[in-house]
């Protein structure tokens, strides 16, 4: 979908070359298809099947069809399963919380990532690459290590608080760890480059003569940004939002390590089901399938609204 818009933006170019590769297309795409099939479609299939099996205590499954996992997700039938079914709000609540957290993280990444990308894309040649390099440097370090470092930095007697106390901004340590703020900080820090890079790429392709044309035709800078620049770099913004939102939704490192075990999010919930001996594989698989469906529904709604808006 994002690609479709990009093509439209540059449809002034001749498309004759495409013909030459037409016949080769299937062969060229084969490696990608095979990889996607083996490592995406097959595992998803396994998850789907497992979500309809019966749980084995201490992890694993019994090969017997059952809807228990989905039932457990949506309904509360009492401790022994003999009471009349009531809606189970726990897991829906966790989903809701996760959506909200991921949405907020995406918004924060967008608000800070867009200006960052804009500034980088408008630097002259060499500086562009210096800035891009600096943005990506932290990502050479494993996410787990980065998240633990973040935890260390912001804990009550960590360097951040010590410094703030030392310069006299605070008189008692700021309690950050195990709060929603800490989760946001972790998500923001983890996924910011996924917002910056696609937006950078589309601003890079943007023709700044259009901004001059807009100014020439009496548009203010703000109007130019909203009505000329933004619509033309939107494919990059959408790509960035998807790249931040989707992994934030399923993230478990930041919520686990920074938000504390009590602040459950979907990612942590699912992860719980597959580790240790309290795990419930079918339930974990069912929650994963529900998460996947949710994301697909949202993306489809977006795609539909876009194609309708275009007509």
């Amino acid at each position, binding site marked *: 979908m994002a690609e479709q818009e990009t093509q439209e933006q540059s449809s*002034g170019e001749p498309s004759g070359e495409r013909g030459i590769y037409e016949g080769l297309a299937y062969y060229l795409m084969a490696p990608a298809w095979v990889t996607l099939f083996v490592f995406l479609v097959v595992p998803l299939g396994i998850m789907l099947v497992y979500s309809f099996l019966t749980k084995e205590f201490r992890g694993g499954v019994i090969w017997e069809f059952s809807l228990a996992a989905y039932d457990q997700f949506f309904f509360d039938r009492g401790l022994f399963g003999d009471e009349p079914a009531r809606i189970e709000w726990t897991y829906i609540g966790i989903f809701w919380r996760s959506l909200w957290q991921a949405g907020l993280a995406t918004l924060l990444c967008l608000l800070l990532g867009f200006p960052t990308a804009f500034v980088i894309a408008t630097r002259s040649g060499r500086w562009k690459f210096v800035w891009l390099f600096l943005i990506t440097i932290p990502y050479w370090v494993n996410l787990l290590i980065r998240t633990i470092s973040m935890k260390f930095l912001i804990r009550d007697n960590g360097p951040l608080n010590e410094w703030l106390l030392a310069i006299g901004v605070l008189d008692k340590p700021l309690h950050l760890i195990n709060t929603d703020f800490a989760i946001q900080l972790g998500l923001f820090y983890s996924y910011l480059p996924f917002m910056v890079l696609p937006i950078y790429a589309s601003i890079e392709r943007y023709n700044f003569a*259009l901004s001059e*044309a807009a100014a*020439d*035709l*009496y548009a203010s800078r703000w*109007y130019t940004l909203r009505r000329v620049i933004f619509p033309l770099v939107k494919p990059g913004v959408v790509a960035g939002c998807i790249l931040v939102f989707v992994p934030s939704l399923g993230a478990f490192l930041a919520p686990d390590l920074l938000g504390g075990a009590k602040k459950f999010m979907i990612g942590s919930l699912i992860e719980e089901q597959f580790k240790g001996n309290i795990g419930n594989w079918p339930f974990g698989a069912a929650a994963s399938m529900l998460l996947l469906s949710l994301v697909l529904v949202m993306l489809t709604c977006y795609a539909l609204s876009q194609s309708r808006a275009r007509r």
Partner: protein
Amino acid sequence: MTPSAHTAVGIVGVTKRYGDYVALRDLSLEISDNEFFTLLGPSGCGKTTLLRVIAGFEEISAGSIFLYGEDIGALPPNKRHVNTVFQQYALFPHMTVLENVLFGLRRLGVAEDNARKQGFEALELVQMSGLQDRLPAQLSGGQQQRVALARALAPRPKVLLLDEPLSALDLKLRQAVRLELKQIQHETGITFVFVTHDQEEALTISDRIAVMNEGVLQQVGESREIYESPSNSFVASFIGETNLLPVRDLRVDGARATCLLPGGVQFSFPAEGGASAGEGLLSIRPERLSLTSPQEGLLNGEVVDHIYLGTDVHVVIAVAGTLSLTARVQNDGAASIPDLGARVGVMLEAGAVRLLRN
């Protein structure tokens, strides 16, 4: 020093530097109201820079700019009532032709019905009615150029700036659009400042021309004045073709002048008084030279080359070995064109020679 309110664009002592590079050097120029004014000069001479300075895209390093008597030097582009037709059109690719044309009108706060009326008028003026719902990518280059023109005309600016708007069109179309532009300028009464490096284009279209070189203004005047009385050798050789002869000991004696050409050749020619004595450069247009027999010529030499131009032929004549002259001869069959190696005489009438001092 402030230009009057009848001067559309007043440029006073404008200098523009990019770092150490001086793109415009102490440039002063007055463009009158309702004038088709052309900036002409070789590539890199600062034409685009001057337009961008007027439009407000570049800050000037020194000097001031006036629009109908108002100092606009400190105003941002969106506060200057001038519009630009960009060299690469710069149409908004996500907006239809009509939305592009209405952009400026809407920003100016013109009421929607009036805006649409003016927009359609502008489209009609450039003969693009009927294509208002297309996207720019669905138009040919020539059509995009017309939309760019309509977009800049629609808000009825005080001054329209055009940066080589015809350069992407083929010759035939360019000649046609050129005349249309002139027509549109006449109909709308908007002052046009037109940039080109094509001297023929400049000569045919303009009320007045400013010739620039390396950021310095060389001469301002009407087409005829620029062509027939160039003020220096740059203008003489840039506009049309000319023979430039460095001379010494120039003496004017009534209706005749004599001088010494390089190689010590004595040259005597009919002059229209006034030309003073001394050293300088003579400029003689090839079409003002005619060929005769060696005995009758003011100078004589040997034909060393023919340059075929279609309706005419340039005949290159070597005079006394060191000097070469080009004469333009009408191509009316082989008879009138001397063969290579033939000895010919060169004639000219009064007024054909212009003395440049530099």
